[in-house]
C-alpha cells in the first residue's frame, strides 16, 4: 500500500517543474530560428496541442490508479514487450538529466560562476539531486511547493520589467508568407511541454480526488503562458536578427533590464539563483522517472533504490561530461527531446487506446 500522497496543488507544481528546466533559457531561440517573428504562434499552437496529449496521459494514469508508467507498460504489454517499451524511456530520462545538467553548468559558468569548473558544478548539483530523489516522491512534492512561487515571481517580474523595452513592431508582420515555418515550428513548440508526461508517474501517489485533472492542466498552462510570453517579450526586446544569435536569451534578457536602483544592477544574479532551483527541480523529476523506469526494467525492489540512484547519478555525470563541445551538447539535447517526443506521440496513445479496449472487454 502506498503511504505517500501528493496533494492536487503538488500535482500542478511538479508538472510545472517537469516542464521547466533548461528549456526556459533557450525556448525563444529555438522557436525564432524556425518561425522567425511568428515563433510565439507555433509555440502557442504546440502548447494547445500538448493539452490534448496531456489528457491521453492522464487517462492512462486514471485507468491504472495504483500503478505508475513503467508498471502500466508491463501490465498492458507483458514482461517482454513492456520492458522493450520501457527501455527507451528509461534511457531518455537519464540522458535528459545528464545533458540538462551539462547545459545548466554551461549557462551558469557563462553568467555567474566563470571560474568554477563545469565538472564541479555538475557534481555538486547531482549530489543534491541524488539526495532529494532518495527521499522519495513526497519530498519532491514538497520541494516543488517551495520552488514554484519563487519561479512564478521571478518570471513574472522579469516579464514586467522587460516590457518597457518591448517594441511590438518587431513582432510584425504577423503570419505574412510564413505559414510554412509556423507549421514547421509546431512540433518543436510541442516538445518543449513534454514534461506533462510526469502525470503518469505521480498520479498513483496522489489522493486521486476530483479536480486533480484541473490542477494538472493548470500545471501545463502556466509553462505555456510563460514560454509564449517570454518569446513575445524576447522578440520585442531583441528583434529576430539578434535573438537568432543568442544562446541563452532568457539570461540575456534578465541582464538587459535597466533598473533605476544601482544596487540591483546585477538583477540576473537573482534570476540565475531562482533558475538554479528550477533546473534542480527538473533534474529531480527526471531522475525520479529514470529510477522508476530502471527499477521496473530490471525488477529491482524499492528497498534497493539507493543503489539504483548511485548508478544512475554516476551514469548521468559521465553523460554530461562526454561531449567536449558545448554547442554539440545543445544539438544532442534537441535531438534527444525530439526523438523522445515522437516515440511518446506514437506509444502513449496506443497504450491508452489498448487500455480502454481492455477495460471495455473486461466490462463486457
Amino acid at each position: 500500500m502506498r503511504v505517500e500522497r501528493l496533494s492536487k496543488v503538488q500535482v500542478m507544481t511538479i508538472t510545472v517543474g517537469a516542464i521547466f528546466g533548461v528549456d526556459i533559457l533557450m525556448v525563444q531561440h529555438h522557436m525564432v530560428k524556425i518561425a522567425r517573428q511568428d515563433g510565439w504562434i507555433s509555440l502557442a499552437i504546440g502548447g494547445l496541442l500538448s493539452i490534448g496529449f496531456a489528457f491521453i496521459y492522464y487517462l492512462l494514469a486514471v485507468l491504472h490508479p495504483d500503478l505508475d508508467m513503467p508498471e502500466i507498460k508491463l501490465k498492458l504489454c507483458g514482461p517482454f514487450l513492456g520492458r522493450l517499451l520501457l527501455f527507451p524511456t528509461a534511457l531518455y530520462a537519464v540522458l535528459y538529466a545528464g545533458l540538462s545538467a551539462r547545459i545548466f553548468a554551461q549557462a551558469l559558468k557563462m553568467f555567474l560562476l566563470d571560474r568554477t569548473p563545469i565538472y564541479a558544478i555538475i557534481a555538486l548539483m547531482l549530489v543534491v539531486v541524488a539526495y532529494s530523489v532518495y527521499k522519495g516522491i513526497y519530498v519532491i512534492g514538497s520541494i516543488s511547493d517551495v520552488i514554484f512561487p519563487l519561479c512564478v515571481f521571478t518570471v513574472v517580474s522579469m516579464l514586467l520589467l522587460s516590457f518597457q523595452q518591448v517594441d511590438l513592431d518587431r513582432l510584425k508582420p504577423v503570419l505574412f508568407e510564413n505559414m510554412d515555418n509556423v507549421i514547421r515550428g509546431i512540433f518543436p513548440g510541442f516538445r518543449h511541454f513534454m514534461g506533462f508526461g510526469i502525470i503518469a508517474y505521480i498520479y498513483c501517489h496522489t489522493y486521486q480526488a476530483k479536480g486533480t485533472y484541473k490542477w494538472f492542466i493548470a500545471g501545463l498552462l502556466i509553462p505555456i503562458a510563460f514560454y509564449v510570453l517570454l518569446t513575445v517579450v524576447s522578440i520585442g526586446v531583441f528583434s529576430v536578427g539578434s535573438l537568432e544569435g543568442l544562446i541563452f536569451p532568457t539570461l540575456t534578457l534578465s541582464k538587459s533590464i535597466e533598473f533605476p536602483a544601482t544596487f540591483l544592477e546585477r538583477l540576473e544574479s537573482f534570476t540565475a539563483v531562482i533558475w538554479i532551483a528550477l533546473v534542480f527541480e527538473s533534474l529531480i523529476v527526471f531522475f525520479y522517472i529514470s529510477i522508476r523506469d530502471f527499477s521496473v526494467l530490471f525488477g529491482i525492489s524499492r528497498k534497493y533504490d539507493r543503489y539504483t540512484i548511485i548508478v544512475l547519478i554516476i551514469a548521468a555525470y559521465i553523460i554530461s561530461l562526454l561531449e567536449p563541445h558545448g554547442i554539440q551538447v545543445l544539438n544532442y539535447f534537441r535531438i534527444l527531446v525530439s526523438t523522445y517526443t515522437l516515440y511518446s506521440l506514437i506509444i502513449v496513445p496506443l497504450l491508452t487506446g489498448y487500455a480502454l479496449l481492455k477495460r471495455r472487454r473486461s466490462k463486457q
Partner: protein
Amino acid sequence: MKRLLLVLVILIIPLAGCWDRVDIDMRGYVLGIALDAYPPNPIGQNSSEFEASPEEEEPLERMETHAGKPKYAMTVQLPMVKRAQNASSGQMGGGSEGSSTWEITQIGSSFMCMNREMATRTNLLMYYEHLQVIIISDEIAKQGLEKVMDFFVRDPEMRRRVKIYISKGEAKRILDVIPRIEDYASMYLSLLPLNAKKTSRMATDTDLGEMIINIHSGLDFVLPKVEAIKDEIKSSGGAAIKNGKMVGWLTEIELEAVKLMRNLYRGGVLTIKTPGEEEGLNVLEITKAKSTIKPSVKNNVPHFDIRIKVEGNYAEDVNIHTHGQLDMEYIKKLEKAFKKEIETFCAQTIKRMQEEYGADVLQLKKVLQTKTPAYWKKIADHWDEIYPEASISITADVTVRLLGLET
C-alpha cells in the same frame, strides 16, 4: 556518531569558500572603454609631472600579436579606489595630484587580446560587469561598427545597457576628462542621457543592445556625438550610421527632428520668430510629442506620411512684450508658427539624410517591412536606391497647453 562525522566532513568542503571568490579590492572595475584606431597613438590630455609621457608609455601599450596587425587602441578607465578614498578623507599623498582614475591603453588587433594583455600591467583583474560607457572614435565608426563590437556582445561580463557614444576625434580624450561634478568621465556620460527629458539635443535609447539590434536588423540609426575640452564633456547631435558605418554627423536640430519623427522625443524646447515681428522670439517647452508614420505606394514609389503631434507649455518670449496679451487668438497664431517650424526643420533634415548621406535614420525600411510586407518583399534588394527617391510628407499639430504664470 558515524553520521555526525560524515556531516562534519561534508561541511568542511563549503568552508573553503566560493570557487569564484575574488576580493573586492583585487578587481579592476572597468567603468568606461574608449576605442580608437591605431595609428594615431592615443595621447593623454591631463599629463602631469607624475605621469609618463605618451612616448614613454608606447612600448608598454604595444603587444605582440599571433595574427593581424595592431589596428586598434583600447583604453579602459579604472577607478583607483584607494586614491579616491584618500582624497575624500584628506589623506593625499604620493600621486595625489593625479586623477582618481587610471586610463590604461593597449594597442592590438583583437579586443580580447588587448583586455588580457592589460593583466601584464596591473595586478587587478579586469571586471566589466559595471561598465557604463563605450566611446568609439569617429574613425573606427567610419570603418564599420560591427567589425569591432563582437567582443562587447559576446563576453558574458558585458551588459547590453552600456551607453554608446561616437567621439569627434580621439575617443581616449573623453575618458581623460575629469568632469567638474563627477570623479569619473564614464559615470558622467552614463548619467548624461537622463537629461534627454529636458533637452532634445542629445540622442536617447542608444545603448549597446539597441545598436546591435539595429545592426543585426540591417537598420540605419543615430548614435550620440560626444566631444570634450580639458575639463568638460558635451554630448549633442549625433552620428548617422548607415549599414553599420558612420556616414556623417547630424546637427543638434537635425537630431531633434529625427527624434520627433521616430517617436524618441522625451522633452525639449522649440524657439520661433514671433509672427509679424522682426526681433521677437517665442519659446515652447515641449512636454509631449508623438509621431506616426503611414506608408503607401504611389506609382510604385513609396510615400510616407509622417504626422507629429506636439503638446507643450508656452515658456518664454524674448525681445517682445506680451504681458497680458496671450489670448486664444494669439495662441492659435503661435501654434501655427510652431507647426510650420517643426515641418520645416523636419523636411530639411529628411532632405539632407536622403540626398547627402542616403541614411534611413528614420527607419522607414522597418515601417515598410512591418506595415506593407508584400511591397517590401518586392523592393527589399533595391531599398538603398529607392530610399533617396521616396516621397515623405510631414504634418505637425501643435497644442499650447499652459502659459506659465502670466498671460
